[in-house]
């Protein structure tokens, strides 16, 4: 602190122009900026970086009440237990299944939606559709769960009503109680909630495509479908790839909100995902070390996926997303 004031005071210019004195001089000039950023950097450190120390617990048999240095070290025992647990593989399967289904669906549907919106002519109808399409993004998963269970209910749920009305089924399907339907229900709920929102970025990307391309295509007699295929889709390709890579980084860390809320004891075999597993079999059973091992697995696999995806992208485009 002393050094800053000494070298930086206006009127007493530093004699040396060494790297350090230059640094402190600029630092003094930046003092307000430092004051405005360092407290928040410390904040981010506390809540985002500091907990990483907790990863050490995965190599211990953690007992609450003692500090992390007084715990018993057990090496990779927790990971051995984890990889020998049959339930872990079931949970991993559920996580991957739901994230891949979600990834594909929440990519394809919003792109199709954005292209359709772009082709729409009536301005009023367009605005209305768009406003409605954002709506579900803003409601919580608790609300979505309430709505989804109502729609899929066996008592006057609209989906069962329609299926029965059309004669596809003769008695209501117990959607929420069927494990093999769970992945689909989560995916469809996700699409219902996020399509309009995810489409915003694609709509913006489409709006950035030069109109002269379409003009030229029109002159050449290309139908609108051909214009979509040869101009619109290539025009938003980069956006698609960037978002795809960022999503791939989150393949295993998909959270658990949907699964927690939409799932129930009857579909547990299909609904439990990695984070729920660490919650139920780690935290809530006071097996902290085991839970942390699950968390580490999730984080490390996420990073590996992200770097792999980014590496592939880099090879093709010489650009990096991260």
């Amino acid at each position, binding site marked *: 602190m002393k050094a800053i004031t000494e070298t930086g005071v206006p009127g007493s210019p530093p004699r040396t122009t060494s790297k350090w004195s230059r640094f402190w001089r600029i630092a003094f000039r930046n003092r307000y900026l430092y004051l405005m950023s360092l407290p928040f950097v410390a904040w981010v450190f506390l*809540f985002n970086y500091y907990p990483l120390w907790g990863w050490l617990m995965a190599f211990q048999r953690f007992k609450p009440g003692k500090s992390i240095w007084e715990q018993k070290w057990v090496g990779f025992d927790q990971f051995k237990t984890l990889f020998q647990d049959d339930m872990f593989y079931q949970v991993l399967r559920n996580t991957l299944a739901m994230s891949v289904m979600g990834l594909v669906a929440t990519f394809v549907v919003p792109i199709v939606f954005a292209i359709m919106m772009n082709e729409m002519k009536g301005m009023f109808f367009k605005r209305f559709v768009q406003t409605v399409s954002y709506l579900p993004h803003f409601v919580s998963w608790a609300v979505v769960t309430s709505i989804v269970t109502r729609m899929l209910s066996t008592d006057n749920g609209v989906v069962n009503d329609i299926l029965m009305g059309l004669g596809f089924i003769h008695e209501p399907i117990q959607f929420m109680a069927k494990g093999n339907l769970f992945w689909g229900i989560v995916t469809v709920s996700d699409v219902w909630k996020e399509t309009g929102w995810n489409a915003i970025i694609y709509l913006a990307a489409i709006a950035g495509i030069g109109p002269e391309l379409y003009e030229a295509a029109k002159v050449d007699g290309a139908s609108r479908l051909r214009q979509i295929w040869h101009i619109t889709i290539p025009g938003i390709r980069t956006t698609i790839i960037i978002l795809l890579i960022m999503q791939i980084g989150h393949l295993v860390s998909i959270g658990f909100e949907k699964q927690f809320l939409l799932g*129930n004891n009857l579909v547990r075999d299909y609904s439990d995902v990695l984070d729920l597993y660490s919650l139920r079999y780690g935290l809530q059973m006071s097996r902290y070390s085991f839970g942390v091992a699950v968390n580490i697995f999730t984080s490390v696999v996420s990073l590996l996926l992200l770097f792999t995806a980014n590496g592939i992208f880099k090879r093709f485009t010489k650009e990096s997303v991260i």
Partner: protein
Amino acid sequence: MTTYRMRKGAPLSDRILDFVIIVALLVATVVTLYPFLNVLALSFNDSTDSVRGGISIFPREFTWENYKVIFSFSGLATGFKISVLRTLVGTVLGLISSSMLAYTLARPDFQGRRFVSTFLAITMYVSAGLIPIYILIKDLHMMGTFAVYVLPGMISAFNVFVIRSFMDGIPYALQESAKIDGANDFTIYWRIILPMAKPALATIALFLAVTQWNTWFDTYLYNGSSDHLTTLQYELMKVLQSTSSGNNGDYRNSNMTQVMATVSPESVKMAITIFVTIPILLVYPFLQRYFVKGMTLGAVKG
């Protein structure tokens, strides 16, 4: 092949495309909107009548009873109060901290710029996970406090980057002239940059507010046993869990059980769902033009 190309109007394939698009978007709109309207209608319909089925988007036997019942439930009053409070406090704290940090990152002459950017960006991809964070919160004695709602998630890298991208677009000359007039960096941020960054701030305010309003998990994890800190979403979540198939009602709030006796749980659920959703419906159409812009900004800089 040749016949329609000669015609003056759009080719047949284009007209078919228009038709398909309109139908598809209509279907999408109905699918999005119908569930809300259906739940709304059910929440205003007499509980015993609803069981007969056949309610679509209008109530058949209109009643306020379901709402009267949920308002008599004490958890909901507390939940409403805490939800509103955390939304207000969380949004203000988040806005101030993210915009201040964003401003320093938008200053080309700030030394720490690159380091802080990277430092933040890493948090978007690396997370310590559920349990280490839980233990941190416990060690900080934040369990059972209001602070746990607003402090840990105060700064999100994504929000900071969105505001930063917007501020990057504000001409630097404006700040330089203020500097010549003797303004310090904080004054420049507060007096010049913040007012100009309103569109970005509105977007982030919306994101923050919606996140605060919609979260139930922190209540579940940290404040599950503090009834005075319950939130609306948590109350809704408890009702959902208690009535969902296969869960043997671990919802032991006697107050709520009494309430459930007068009208059916399903009607209560519908009324709470609407009650929890309404504030969002009131706010978001007005902010639409902002968040569309904000989303696009965030995507550019990622």
